């Protein structure tokens, strides 16, 4: 660790004109206002730069500071900028920008500016207040006509550069925010950078601090701390993996059997070989059609299940659908792509749907249940692999007739995938 030193130690005069005392007093104020970020704030290495317009970070945890910017900012706003810049690094905005750019084929500085703006929106909607003022120049989602509380990736899909962002073209939080290297940055080989392992260690210590004292951090930081090293995967992948493993696991679909001799046996007399036997998996989808699940949600989830079962080798006619509210409807086949009437509404009892699905002949290899979870579940494990696609609901639905009603969580024997949560790491 001795290879690293801060600007202040290696160079007592980090640059002519920089009011280092003011900068460090601001950092102290920031660390007092956000004690759970102190480790990260102190891990930043200050580099004086006249080319950076304000304050910026690179992905190696160096913080570039313009002396003129420090002079012009009130100390309390400077503290807010410290928190803002360190948030870019903790939230891995550079890595997420790179991934987003790769996935969507985005190139060019304009797109990176857009990522910087979106990343700023993710930070700024709840970073200030409670001991920190919001700097005048901070970009907020509202100024772009967007709602608060979204992730950078969600903001990115919702706005374009245009007249309302013209005032932001000076904005530059460095490659730590949007992944694009700047000419004034020291780069991977420059002095005082943190290695990947060191960066992870700092982020981990901050997350541990937040998890250890959950009372003091706001909701969004708590969520960050929980997900920092386990970014939620996109639900499509998870649902796909769950359905595939349920439908193609041993005992369902394709596997070896000694029931019939293998074709190889002809060439090897005296040797008993198993043969590959293949039966396309049958998947039965039970759909919660009660009022609480929207048609759009159901439609996208149903399409996903159909696509997955096709990918496992299932045929369209082997996917059946049971709409279910308080009682189960007819069993439909997803054969010719005609619409399945998703009628229903009111309360849900998925036990009826389960029973219906298991009674279909031939029996399904896997049952997929799409629901918001506001339902009683079967007491015992059904004789079939079960995947639950759960539409997340903020709070439990209020039941007028029975205010004490608390819906059960899905049972442990089912594999549960939360649908609709966009992964920060995707």
């Amino acid at each position, binding site marked *: *660790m001795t290879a690293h*030193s*801060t600007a*202040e*130690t*290696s160079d007592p005069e980090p640059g002519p004109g920089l009011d280092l*005392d003011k900068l*460090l*007093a601001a*950092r*102290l*104020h920031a660390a007092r*206002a956000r004690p759970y970020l*102190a*480790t*990260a704030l102190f*891990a*930043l*290495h200050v580099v004086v730069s006249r080319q950076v317009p304000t304050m910026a970070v690179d992905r190696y945890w160096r913080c570039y500071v313009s002396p003129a910017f420090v002079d012009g900012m*009130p*100390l*309390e706003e400077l*503290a807010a900028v410290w928190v803002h810049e360190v948030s870019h690094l903790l939230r891995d905005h550079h890595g997420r920008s790179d991934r987003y750019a790769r996935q969507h084929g985005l190139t060019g500085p304009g797109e990176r500016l857009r990522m910087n703006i979106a990343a700023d929106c993710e930070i700024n909607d709840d970073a200030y207040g*409670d*001991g920190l*003022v919001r700097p005048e120049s901070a970009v907020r989602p509202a100024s772009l006509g967007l709602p608060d509380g979204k992730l950078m990736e969600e903001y990115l899909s919702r706005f374009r550069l245009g007249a309302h962002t013209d005032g932001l073209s000076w904005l530059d939080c460095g490659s730590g925010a949007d992944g694009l290297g700047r000419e004034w940055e020291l780069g991977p080989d420059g002095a005082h950078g943190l*290695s990947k*392992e*060191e960066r*992870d*260690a*700092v982020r*981990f*210590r901050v997350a*541990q601090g937040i998890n250890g004292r959950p009372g003091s951090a706001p909701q969004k930081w708590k969520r960050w701390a929980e997900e920092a*090293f*386990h970014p939620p*995967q996109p639900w499509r*992948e*998870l649902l*796909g*993996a*769950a359905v*595939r*493993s349920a439908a*193609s696991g*041993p005992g369902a679909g*394709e*596997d*070896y059997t000694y029931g019939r001799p293998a074709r190889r046996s002809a060439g*090897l007399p*005296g*040797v*008993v*070989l*198993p043969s*590959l036997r293949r039966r396309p998996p049958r998947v039965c989808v039970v759909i919660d059609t009660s009022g609480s699940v929207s048609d759009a949600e159901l439609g996208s989830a149903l399409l996903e299940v159909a696509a997955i079962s096709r*990918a*496992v080798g299932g045929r369209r006619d082997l996917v059946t659908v049971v709409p279910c509210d308080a009682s189960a409807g007819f069993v439909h086949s997803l054969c010719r792509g005609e619409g399945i009437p998703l009628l229903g509404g009111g309360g849900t009892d998925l036990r009826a749907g389960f029973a219906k699905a298991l009674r279909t002949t031939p029996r399904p290899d896997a049952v997929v249940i799409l629901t918001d979870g506001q339902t009683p579940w079967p007491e015992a494990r059904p004789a079939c692999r079960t995947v639950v696609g759960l539409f997340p609901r903020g709070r439990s639905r209020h039941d007028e007739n029975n205010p004490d009603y608390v819906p059960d969580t899905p049972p442990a024997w089912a*594999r549960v995938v939360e649908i609709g949560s966009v992964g920060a790491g995707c």
Partner: protein
Amino acid sequence: MPTCAPLTLVDTPADPFAPESAPGSAAGTETAQLDVAGDLLTLLRHSTTEPRPDDQLEALTLAVAADLPVLLWGEPGIGKTAALTQLAASLDLPLTTVIASVHEPSDFSGLPVVGDDPAEQGVPMAPPDWAVRLVRAGKGLLFLDELSTAPPAVQAALLRLVLERRIGSLQLPRGVRIVAAANPRGSAADGWELSPPLANRFVHLQWVHDHEVVVRGLGGTWPRATMPRLDPERLPEAVDFARRAVCGLLAARPTLVHRLPSGETRRGGPWPSPRSWDMTLTLIAFATAAGSSRDVLSQLVRGTVGDGPGLELLASLDRLDLPDPETLLADPAGAELPERGDLRQAVLDGVVAAVRARPERSRWDAAWELLVKAVETGAPDLVVVPATTLATLRQEDWDVPASIESLAGAVGLSRRADQAAERTAARLAEAAARAGR
């Protein structure tokens, strides 16, 4: 080069010897074309290598050297096989690649051969030829590729091979090392995944391609990894260090010893159990004896017990690296404080905590001396919190040391921050009042 078209050249050769091969001229031309194609291929295949540190290859080498089952997770076509070829060459082991998905389970569990009198002699399970060759050679690197696209029964047979090193009735010798590769769940066509007990037996290494390496390699220069060498003199020290690291953490955090993965996202990945901690201990010892970097160790540890426990272990290793507060208090003049801000603050906090645990006049003075030293050699804002805490530990008959004047800068800084906090509170209150009106 003459300016006429090349085709004319071939048809009417100016070479006086050419007409002699007239009967076979058509065949001769074709051979020539294939030769040219061969030359072109030789040129294309000609590439040089350059030494380049490669953390993931180093991690793989160490895990293979430690004889632990390794599972490489990586998208198809990113050079897992190339890496294994290089690894085999550097370890001086013959490489046997077995593509799991084109085999049948009996190829790994042994082919049942029915003899004359099965009831009397039993049915032997005959091993495949490559296994026999491996046993005869006594050493080798067995690479089981495409584990995830094989049908479940083949996977089951393969896992027995990886974990028990048995093929039918054949036991693989100790000199054989096994590495398996699988595609991540998202890209695997049939979504194979490991059950938690199986996942717990592997060192999971994520294999990713380095953009720079690929571009440079296609340009003709591939990297040549420098293989870690185990230093024979460091072996006892490495074992001691590894035991201290793992036992130190687990003594303080008993819940980390065994923790089954919960939730859909963490399925099929590494998780902590006494078995995987034992593997971690081995890997720390190997990485220490090889003098590997912390990045390599991080990949190995997180690939064995998972991210959370792995990072906790690495964090406690960092703390092992930090100077001991008692040593610093015993000799404040000769103390060397870490230069990175967050580590320095951790050390100073530790020093103050040590004084609080055993408050004595001499220790209190020594702590002040350390704080003064910290202000003189680094950022003053780090010192404010430890200094405030240390001041509260003063007992009545203790005089404030003279050297404390050096802390004036830090005190000033603290005052400015206090004032900023007051201004902030006022501004926020004003804004709230305006919003409320």
